[in-house]
């Protein structure tokens, strides 16, 4: 049962408080802050994908006029075996530190080997060219299948995956799970299909490159400004990577021009801090677009083998999923997620799933919207569609027959609470798009998707201003309109106008801890902290009104922005104006580790037309149906649904990391790394389904990630139906489609 059942302002669509600054160019992003006296950092990067660093000579650079500091990996503490964070978010320092600066060895092309700070960006880049690094070049491997072969060069001589301790391999991790008796269940199945599907490594494609500026004062205190999805995480990581006490690191988050998971870590920040410490001047660093592609963490490429067994009546009886993921040069922990979540949409009592991660000479992967799930879902959902065809069943009806609901358990063991997959499938089946006949020459595909969603730690502070306005401070960078949602939630509880509320993102020293804006958690968890703090405000205002009226606090009620008792009432504004004489300033804080997270499900319908001669695919119609729990600000929920679909369509059709034989990225820019532009997409239709999350006071569920999960299999099926040839390896770009058509 949700604490709030009826809403007055939740579900409306006011303009976001940050909108005006953004459209008028006043909003300040990562590269927009300048500190007095700042100098500029530049990173020296490896021209080899795999090499031993024999020596680094910075003397010529240091001798140059205007050069104030240099650094190498030796200036960062040895990572040892320490681990940062815990649970899903845990990361070993030895996997993080070399993504900032290598030491001893480089494991991917363009990896940082040294850095220099000088009085202008031009000088810094000229000085960087004077740093002499000598390398002993080693053979590199960028293909994960080759990396597992006996001849492959080994990236880490000192790492052995759990359970395979004989000799070093490039296998980074291996996780296997099993429920029931899958082998026997396959024996009993009427129909069994088995296919292999693949997805290339791809990038989040955020528009704003990484940028920061850092100052270290005489007392060793760090003041850092950067573009990030989580400045508390930046503080924690930067402190650990530089050996500075986290209490001395203050981080302010700039406005952010996209992240999609890619800005939940640090790249430049520790370098800027070390250079600033050495130079005694603030250091600014901006990564250029090419390096964003070359050295930040992309999403893992993956190959997934899927075997499904079903009875003639459409009952799924067994599943086996084996997913191999390319983790890049260090372990980004991609293997567990496919093992646990591959079959999360379906009732399966007999299933086996395996996830493996493989080291290759490429940048370490990092989070990208529902990390690792789109890759494995391509396989499972396309196999579901292929199996539906074999059973001569409607693909949505087949899914509905097997869809999980409350009480079902998935590979993670715990049974689902109230979830909304069935509702989404029912809405999809009845949708005008699905009912419309497929146009001549076009094809249609559908797919479902799941994402777990995170809870984690959040804090909020509410300050009632003397004119009856309210400021909200949280530590959650606003990527998708969360400030508007925070204001709506406070307005709902307090009953005051939306535009009297001023939500802000406070620095790490000004508000309680907040984990990253990621895991689709901010509206749920930080929102819950806002709701709790607003409830405290209501309670205190009622208490003050009761004191004024000399009655018991319990008899005072709060509605429509005022305290009431019999004939008496006192408005929020009146209580705010008189705060000084009624008990002092009204300030409320709430911090929590949210245990209210609930998974999201979505169903997508895609129509596509393939030009049989050129192999170009046009997406002609696209509909996203998704359970949002309760949509706080529906327009921004729809924005998430559309954005996720757009990114998934790009991955399906064109996006792909291309490496040359020396392990250098061939397409480090938006010209040749083809994310879709607006004219590549139809208007993406959305239907928000609301199955309230029983664990959250307003019924909220995370909405940001699941929309990137279904597009690849939905698009792939639509392309198959239009082109007439089945392709299971993304991306479905024009040369690949023409080659498949010619082979037919």
């Amino acid at each position: 049962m949700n604490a709030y059942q009826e809403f007055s302002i939740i579900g409306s669509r006011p303009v976001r408080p940050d909108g005006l600054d953004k459209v008028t160019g006043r909003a300040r992003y990562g590269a927009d802050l300048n500190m007095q006296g700042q100098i500029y950092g530049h990173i020296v990067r490896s021209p080899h994908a795999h090499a031993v660093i024999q020596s680094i000579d910075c003397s010529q650079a240091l001798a140059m006029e205007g050069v104030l500091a240099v650094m190498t990996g030796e200036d960062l503490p040895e990572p040892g075996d320490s681990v940062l964070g815990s649970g899903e978010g845990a990361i070993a320092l030895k996997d993080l530190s070399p993504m900032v600066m290598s030491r001893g060895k480089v494991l991917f092309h363009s990896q940082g080997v040294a850095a220099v700070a000088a009085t202008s960006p031009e000088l810094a880049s000229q000085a960087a060219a004077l740093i002499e690094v000598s390398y002993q070049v080693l053979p590199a491997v960028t293909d994960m299948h080759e990396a597992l072969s006996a001849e492959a060069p080994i990236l880490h001589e000192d790492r052995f995956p759990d359970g395979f301790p004989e000799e070093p391999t490039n296998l980074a991790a291996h996780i296997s799970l099993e429920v029931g008796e899958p082998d026997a269940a396959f024996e009993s199945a009427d129909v069994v299909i088995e296919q292999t599907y693949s997805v290339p490594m791809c990038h989040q494609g955020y528009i704003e490159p990484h940028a920061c500026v850092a100052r270290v004062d005489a007392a060793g205190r760090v003041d850092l400004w950067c573009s990030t999805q989580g400045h508390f995480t930046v503080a924690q990581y930067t402190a650990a990577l530089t050996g500075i006490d986290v209490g001395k690191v203050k981080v302010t988050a700039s406005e952010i021009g996209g992240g999609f998971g890619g800005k939940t870590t640090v790249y430049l920040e520790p370098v800027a801090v070390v250079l600033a410490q050495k130079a005694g001047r603030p250091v600014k660093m901006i990564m250029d677009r090419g390096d964003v592609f070359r050295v930040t963490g992309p999403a893992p490429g993956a190959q997934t083998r899927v075997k499904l067994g079903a009875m003639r009546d459409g009952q799924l009886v067994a599943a086996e999923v084996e997913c191999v993921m390319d983790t890049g040069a260090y372990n980004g922990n991609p293997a567990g997620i496919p093992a646990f979540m591959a079959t999360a949409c379906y009732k399966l009592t007999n299933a086996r799933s395996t996830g493996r991660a493989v080291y290759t000479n490429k940048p370490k992967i990092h989070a990208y919207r529902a990390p690792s799930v789109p890759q494995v879902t391509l396989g499972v959902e396309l196999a579901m569609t292929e199996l539906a065809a074999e059973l001569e069943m409607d693909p949505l009806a087949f899914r509905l027959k097997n869809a999980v609901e409350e009480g079902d358990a998935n590979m993670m063991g715990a049974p689902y609470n109230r979830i909304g997959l069935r509702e989404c499938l029912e809405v999809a089946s009845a949708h005008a798009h699905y009912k419309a006949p497929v146009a001549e020459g076009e094809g249609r595909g559908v797919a479902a998707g799941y994402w777990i969603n995170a809870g984690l730690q959040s804090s909020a502070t509410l300050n009632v201003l003397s004119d009856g306005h309210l400021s909200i401070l949280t530590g959650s960078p606003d990527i998708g309109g969360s400030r508007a949602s925070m204001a709506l939630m406070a307005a709902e509880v307090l009953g005051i106008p939306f535009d009297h509320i001023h939500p802000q993102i406070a620095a790490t020293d000004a508000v309680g801890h907040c984990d990253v804006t990621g895991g689709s958690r901010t509206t749920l968890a930080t929102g819950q902290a806002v709701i709790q703090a607003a409830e405290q405000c209501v309670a205190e205002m009622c208490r003050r009104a009761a004191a004024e009226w000399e009655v018991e606090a319990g008899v005072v009620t709060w509605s429509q922005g005022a305290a009431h008792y019999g004939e008496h009432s006192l408005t929020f504004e009146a209580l705010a104006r008189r705060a000084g004489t009624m008990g002092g300033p009204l300030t409320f804080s709430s911090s929590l580790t949210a245990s209210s997270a609930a998974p999201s499900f979505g169903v997508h319908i895609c129509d596509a037309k393939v030009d049989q001669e050129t192999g170009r695919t046009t997406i002609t119609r696209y509909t996203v149906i998704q359970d949002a729990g309760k949509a706080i600000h529906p327009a921004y929920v729809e924005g998430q649904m559309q954005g996720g679909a757009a990114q998934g369509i790009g991955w399906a059709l064109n996006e792909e990391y291309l490496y040359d034989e020396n392990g250098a990225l061939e397409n480090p820019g938006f010209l040749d790394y083809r994310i879709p532009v607006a004219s590549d997409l139809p208007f993406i239709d959305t239907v928000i389904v609301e199955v309230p999350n029983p664990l959250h006071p307003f019924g909220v569920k995370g909405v940001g990630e699941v929309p990137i999960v279904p597009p690849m299999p939905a698009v792939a099926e639509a392309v198959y139906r239009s082109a007439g040839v089945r392709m299971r390896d993304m991306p479905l770009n024009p040369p690949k489609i023409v080659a498949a058509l010619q082979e037919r």
Partner: protein
Amino acid sequence: MSIQEFVAPHSLSEAKGLLSDGAMASVLAGGTDLLVGVRLGTRSPERVVDLKHIPELTAIHVDAESVRIGAAASAFSILHDSDVPSCFPGLAEALDLIGSTQIQGRCSAGGNLCNASPAADSIPALIANDAQCLITGPAGDHQMRVEDFVLGPGKNALKEGELLVALILPRPSSQTADAYLRLTPRTEMDIAVAGVGVSLTLDGEGTCTAARVSIGAVAPTALLVEAAGAALVGTQLDATAIEAAVAATREAACPISDKRGTAEYRTHVVGVLVARAVAQAQARIVETSS
């Protein structure tokens, strides 16, 4: 060496002087290639000479015989000219494919040609329309066909101190029309995997009396495929003739395989585009003469 000097002369003679006094000079029309090159470090002129304040270089002049497009006239001004888009709908399409509205407000046909990228969109359209380059320099003025102007990727026929002044295209009759098509994976903000410019002339009976077919992005330079044109002339543009033109085009193409497409794919698709561009140009003539 970074840029030391930026000059914006108001006359052609002034510009010529600035290009022939020995300084490492680069001319700038829209700058949409030059400035990208400077940023990437592939271009490092000491002096930049802006051409946009020289009237002859930005003017567009149309008379009964010919159309003269100033080398530095922006794509936007060409696309909004009262005559050029109706005379050369294919050339207009090519210019309209360059970048975005913002890019088109700056970039020029002359810059697109001088930059000499194998994938430049306007070059096949200019070749199909039999355009001539008007060049001026220390040795005086001369003219040259566009197909002879581009020598290789990034290389043009201009000599030390020379400047492209204008592009001169014969004015087409109502029985002549052009078309330009390119293949990109995306709808816009992309670079041609293959491009095709076609110009056709039909007589009253619909027989093709002249045809020029030019292809881009499938060889080191845009090519005039004379055999493809020859396959069309004298025919009613029937399936056999089109097939012959397609075959001749694929024969002439010698693309590389790279991140933008395999050689096989480019060879295949340039043929597809030839057939479609011929059909489009033909439809334009039929439409205007009916």
